[in-house]
């Protein structure tokens, strides 16, 4: 197309005058640019806006934003913070890039194509909410509340999750943070010490740090890392059990190159050694534990030699570790882990960690497991209602017993997924995904697709067009953590030995939301109104919610702002064992459910011939798939090279930097390729890569196809028998180079 005249000529002709008059008839009268009423505003200079709380990961460091003319220029740690202080990590800094990511969702959209192969059309909020409300209401009317399943994740998903659980009444809610991550840890510790452990070990003041698979340094949470580094600086010894020479293993005094899946056997042998050699804390065991005899009896088969064989490590090294722990007890920090859904035998491993801490007497003492005493701030939300267990998949209705006696809150993912796909015991017909990307968090992508295809209606709420959003019928854009009020963050000073202080802060927007992004209260309430629950709505706005929560401690948004975003008050001494505290070394209740009452090693499937076990972990500059489209972080780490043992690589003809794909033991091939990192720092029987790469959604223009999506290769399901959580490291792969599948030598 070309216009056969020049602009200047055209503008000079009488034709323009004739043509331009009708033009104005079809334009709207108003413009977005208007004459200033007053003097030219000019630039207001840089402003420091307080009240930010990071959510590039879930550690939630406290931020301030440097804002110029309404634009967020830079994020920094809030100087008033007694947690992260002025420090934030690379991901925290890169929040600016998430905020202004061109690919971010901006308006409500309707899929006028197919699920999985969408054609998006921008629609109004009214149309989007009407559609969500009526489709979800239809599901409830036709199939009951249980006809809706919900996959939530993150701070903004709490309020809608409570709505669907409490007001609507579905039990079919599955949070990835529980069922594919840390839920096992929490319920195992609750079953042992009555409390979820967090990562509450007193690292700065410990004498020995004991990590099973924790790779701090690659897994970065600012104040946690500060604690860790302080501990090492103060001379703490570090023991790291990991099949890989991780960032932590590189700093370790003892690196235990353990065979994957055998960690519980390893800990049982350490505990048995301590018991057999009278090197445990007798006084603590006497005063604060229950079931010691049965526990000791149950683990006594685990000699150093037996464990050495099972774990493929030297017996002398197990002894060395046990001696080091005993010599420094009770000031030893046994890390409870964070992402712990590994092999489907994880409840027992977590129990073993909790019991090991117990027999070393390392609870509530300097350098042990010590929960800081933080302030309690009220949690306003939807009112709890009893919806019975008739449609609760957690219950086996013949026996009226729980299917998984120690499942974390919600319903295990596979109970929901199987029911949704099969329609048994009842139909599930609508799916709400809020901030979670089940395509890259839940094993077996085909089953996830089958679930979505079985739905009458799918809605997704997110900030980015992650892989799962391609399966939505309606896609709603959410305000990010930098643009909304929301989470109340509380805690104490990061080093427990320092002056006892507590802090209270609340997430406040650093800039207003752009485009038509809305927060969770607006979206949930509008849907609730359309589903007939208007009378139950607990708060009208996010500000109201935050203010009501803060009011329980005599604070308000206004007061917090006046205090630079963080309220600090005197704290309490966290050391000293509470009277009622007890470690259940042998737990009768667990035994009554038919599971082992003392920590027990359950072997995991071995590698099929020619395959390596696929291990994955966290990258220091990415937070799973949440940050894969962030241009700064992508530049820092564009893909996820696969670690291959140097001897294995030499045998199969791989060199550093080779490009490879994968095929797993079930015949599933990776859609993309990555490069090889040849290293002596990994066992021969496994390969390793960072999790959260290789997005399949082309809407993620930076992250699409960058590296390999490890979750796509995790197709074999392992489910932890006590908790119903997934185990995700029982999948095995071969590498493919130039189209040739390479067998991994035994």
């Amino acid at each position, binding site marked *: *197309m*070309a*216009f*056969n*005249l*020049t*602009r*200047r*000529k*055209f*503008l000079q002709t009488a*034709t*323009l005058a004739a*043509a*331009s*008059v*009708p*033009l*104005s*008839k*079809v*334009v*709207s*009268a*108003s*413009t*977005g*640019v*208007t*004459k*200033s009423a007053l003097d*030219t*505003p*000019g*630039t207001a200079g840089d402003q420091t806006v307080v009240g930010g709380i990071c959510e590039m990961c879930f550690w939630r460091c406290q931020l301030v934003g440097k804002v*110029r*003319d309404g*634009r*967020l220029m830079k994020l920094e740690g809030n100087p008033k913070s007694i947690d992260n202080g002025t420090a934030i990590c690379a991901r925290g800094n890169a929040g600016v*890039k998430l*905020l*202004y990511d*061109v690919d971010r969702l*901006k*308006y409500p*959209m309707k899929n*006028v194509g197919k699920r999985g*192969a969408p*054609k*998006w*059309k*921008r629609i109004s909020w009214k149309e989007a909410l009407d559609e969500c409300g009526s489709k979800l209401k239809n599901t409830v009317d036709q199939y009951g509340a249980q006809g809706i399943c919900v996959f939530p994740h993150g701070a903004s998903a709490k309020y809608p999750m409570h709505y669907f659980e409490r007001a609507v009444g579905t039990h079919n809610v599955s949070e990835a943070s529980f069922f594919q991550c840390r839920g096992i840890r929490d319920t195992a510790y609750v079953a042992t010490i009555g409390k979820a452990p967090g990562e509450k070990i007193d690292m700065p003041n410990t004498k020995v740090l004991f990590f099973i698979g924790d790779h701090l340094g690659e897994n970065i949470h600012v104040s946690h890392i500060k604690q860790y580094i302080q501990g090492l600086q103060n001379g703490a010894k570090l023991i790291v059990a990991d099949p890989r020479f991780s960032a932590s293993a590189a700093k370790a005094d003892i690196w235990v190159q353990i065979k994957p899946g055998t960690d519980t056997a390893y800990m049982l042998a350490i505990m048995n050694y301590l018991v057999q050699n009278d090197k445990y804390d007798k006084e603590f065991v006497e005063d604060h534990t229950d079931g010691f005899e049965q526990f000791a009896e149950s683990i006594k088969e685990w000699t150093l030699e037996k464990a050495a064989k099972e774990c493929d490590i030297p017996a002398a090294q197990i002894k060395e570790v046990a001696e080091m722990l005993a010599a420094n007890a009770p000031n030893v920090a046994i890390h409870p882990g964070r992402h712990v859904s590994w092999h489907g035998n994880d409840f027992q491993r977590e129990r073993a960690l909790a019991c090991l801490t117990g027999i070393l007497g390392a609870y509530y003492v300097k350098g042990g497991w010590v929960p800081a005493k933080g302030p309690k701030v009220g949690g306003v939300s939807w009112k709890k209602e009893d919806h019975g267990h008739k449609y609760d998949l957690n219950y086996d209705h013949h026996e009226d017993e729980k299917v998984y006696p120690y499942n974390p809150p919600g319903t295990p993912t596979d109970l929901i997924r199987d029911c949704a796909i099969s329609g048994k015991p009842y139909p599930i017909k609508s799916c709400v995904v809020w901030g979670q990307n089940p395509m890259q968090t839940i094993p077996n992508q085909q089953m996830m697709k089958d679930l979505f295809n079985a739905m009458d209606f799918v809605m997704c709420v997110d900030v980015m*067009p992650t892989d799962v959003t391609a399966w939505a019928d309606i896609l709603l854009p959410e305000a990010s953590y930098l643009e909304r009020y929301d989470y109340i963050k509380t805690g104490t000073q990061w080093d427990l030995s320092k002056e006892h202080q507590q802090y209270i802060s609340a997430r406040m927007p650093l800039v207003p939301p*752009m*485009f038509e992004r809305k927060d969770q209260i607006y979206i949930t309430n509008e849907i609730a109104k359309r589903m007939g629950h208007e009378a139950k709505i607990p708060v009208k706005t996010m500000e109201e919610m935050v203010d009501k929560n803060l009011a329980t401690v005599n604070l308000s948004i206004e007061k917090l702002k006046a205090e630079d975003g963080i309220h600090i008050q005197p704290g309490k001494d966290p050391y000293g064992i509470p009277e009622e505290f007890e470690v259940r070394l042998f737990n009768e209740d667990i035994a009554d459910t038919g599971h082992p009452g003392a920590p027990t090693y359950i072997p995991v499937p071995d590698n099929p011939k020619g395959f390596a076990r696929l291990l994955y972990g966290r990258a220091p500059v990415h937070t799973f798939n949440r940050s894969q489209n962030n*241009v700064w972080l992508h530049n820092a780490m564009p893909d996820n090279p696969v670690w291959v043992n140097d001897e294995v690589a030499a045998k199969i003809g791989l060199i550093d930097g080779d490009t490879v794909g994968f095929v797993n033991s079930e015949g599933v091939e990776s859609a993309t390729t990555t490069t090889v990192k040849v290293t002596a720092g990994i066992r021969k029987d496994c390969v390793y890569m960072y999790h959260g790469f290789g997005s399949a959604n*082309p*809407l993620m*223009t930076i992250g*699409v196809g960058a590296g390999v999506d490890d979750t796509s290769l995790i197709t074999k399901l392992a489910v932890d028998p006590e908790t119903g959580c997934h185990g995700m490291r029982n999948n095995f792969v071969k590498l493919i180079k130039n189209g040739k599948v390479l067998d991994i030598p035994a």
Partner: protein
Amino acid sequence: MLDTEPSNDIARVYRFLAQCMQYPDQEWMNDEFFNVLYNFLGTLDAVEDGIAIKKAIDNTDDAIEDLQVEYTRLFINGVPHVVAPPYGSVYMDQSLQGTFAGDTLAFYHTKGFEMDKSADLPDHLIHELEFLSLLAEENDFSGEEEFLKKLFRPWYKKFHPRVTKGAHHPFYRVVVQLIDFFTKEEDKDGFQPNEA
């Protein structure tokens, strides 16, 4: 907020072009609108372009939905990826709200204008065209020229070919070409090379 019709010819043209870039909606994208567009293309000796648009519109059950899907894919979120976000700083800073957006806003301020609260980002194509129309109203031709040169053309010349290449619907191909035509500087002989 200004609530008047543009008062001179070039101001009307800018405002019309800005209107064409609004999200398609039955309210304004009606027969009258298309007739005006076709006539306008006629005055530019581009009847063929009008025919192409008319054909695309007549050969479908829901012309507005087609254009909405196309608009979403080209300018908002699309598969395989958004083709051409209509914001200057995406091209100049590889980000929304980059310093280029700040410079654009600063320019508005120096001319005594500000963004309405409900407006999109300052460097959105629509607002830039609206701003140009307001300058034209005030007969601030040097301001118009300076803005085009410093803050409009540098990104528009990257945006324009992306749309031309990526558009499935002739409407947006034609509209971006029209915008190009009315904003492009000609060389001293008045000769305008055709980039399309």
